């Protein structure tokens, strides 16, 4: 049909074939991209108040380590994360709670009562009792938690990134 104003059969099949292929490609291809990116697109933030027990059990002006674990779900698996915080009770009703994670490279700091300092063993970071920097490579003071006291019980606000 050289002079026909209409499409040839071959042209028709080509166009329909390309259209169907494109449709299948889009319907399967775009969800496939979302499928691969899925875990990165999930928001994993959460806030929760962690109970640390009665405030009165913590001694005055002496940082005391409190540890707890939180279970986090990663796809088909649950991971238990350990947390450690130093509770510093400054008066009968006032308290400050610091993370024991060094702000340099995330080693754990320990309280040395004889020096009255927190010391990070990894790169010799020294922090004062209020978490401020004394010496070492750390860029900022120890992270502090928001606290609240309800019926004499201490709580901290844990923000999971």
């Amino acid at each position, binding site marked *: 049909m050289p002079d026909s104003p209409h499409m040839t059969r071959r042209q028709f099949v080509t166009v329909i074939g390309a259209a169907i292929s494109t449709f299948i490609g889009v319907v*399967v291809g775009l*969800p*496939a991209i*979302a*499928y*691969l*990116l*899925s*875990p990165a*697109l*999930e928001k994993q933030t959460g806030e929760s108040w962690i109970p640390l027990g009665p405030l009165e059990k913590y001694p005055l002006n002496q940082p005391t380590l409190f540890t707890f674990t939180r279970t986090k779900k990663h*796809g*088909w*698996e649950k991971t238990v994360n350990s947390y450690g915080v130093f509770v510093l009770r400054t008066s009968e009703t006032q308290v400050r709670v610091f993370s024991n994670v060094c702000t340099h490279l995330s080693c754990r700091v320990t309280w040395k009562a004889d020096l009255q300092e927190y010391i990070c063993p990894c790169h010799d970071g020294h922090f004062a009792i209020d978490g401020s920097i004394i010496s070492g490579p750390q860029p900022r003071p120890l992270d502090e938690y928001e606290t609240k006291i309800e019926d004499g019980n201490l709580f901290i606000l844990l923000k999971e990134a």
Partner: protein
Amino acid sequence: MFRRLFEWLDERLGLTGIHDVVLDRKVPKVNWWFTLGSASLFLFLLQGITGIFLTVYYVPSPDHAYDSVQYIMNEVRFGWLIRGIHHWGASLMVLVVFIHMLRTFFYAAYKYPRELTWLSGVILLLATLGMGFTGYLLPWNQRSYWATTVGTEIAGTVPVVGPFILSVLRGGSELSAITLARFFAVHIWFLPALIAATIGLHLYLVIRLGISHIPDESD
């Protein structure tokens, strides 16, 4: 611009030659039953692609297999779609490959000179059924566990060598982590490699020998 690029590529890759030999073949007047080979190939590619995607999240271990499938179905975006295509595509592929075989049989297309095409098709049909058998265990739910228990038990009823076949299939005397791992390996490596290679031979023969016409009174 595109024409010159195409000509540059064509001169080096011989694209026009490939097109003429592979796609622009002379074929007798045929009907819709003759599309089932292409449909089988399409389904194989679709199963391959969705299968590759499933391995991103699936874990072939008894303590995680079931949970990872649940994760794909309920939490991964479009996981239900990818697994759904793989699940239904599997049943459809067995169906299409089987009807493709029936068409070849009833049109007597397996005769001289196409015996090897038929024999390679036998391998492809059996390998496809093997894919179904091994894939069925992977979700590691009650149905797949007991289906594989029964299936391997049936293989074990072969006289003399039955118990040996049974322990080879299971990787021991009972269904275990070893069974799951070897079914997974066979499902994603051994059989797909066999099928891909055999499809290559099958298509080479189809292109070399051409396809047979529908039998008429002269046959």
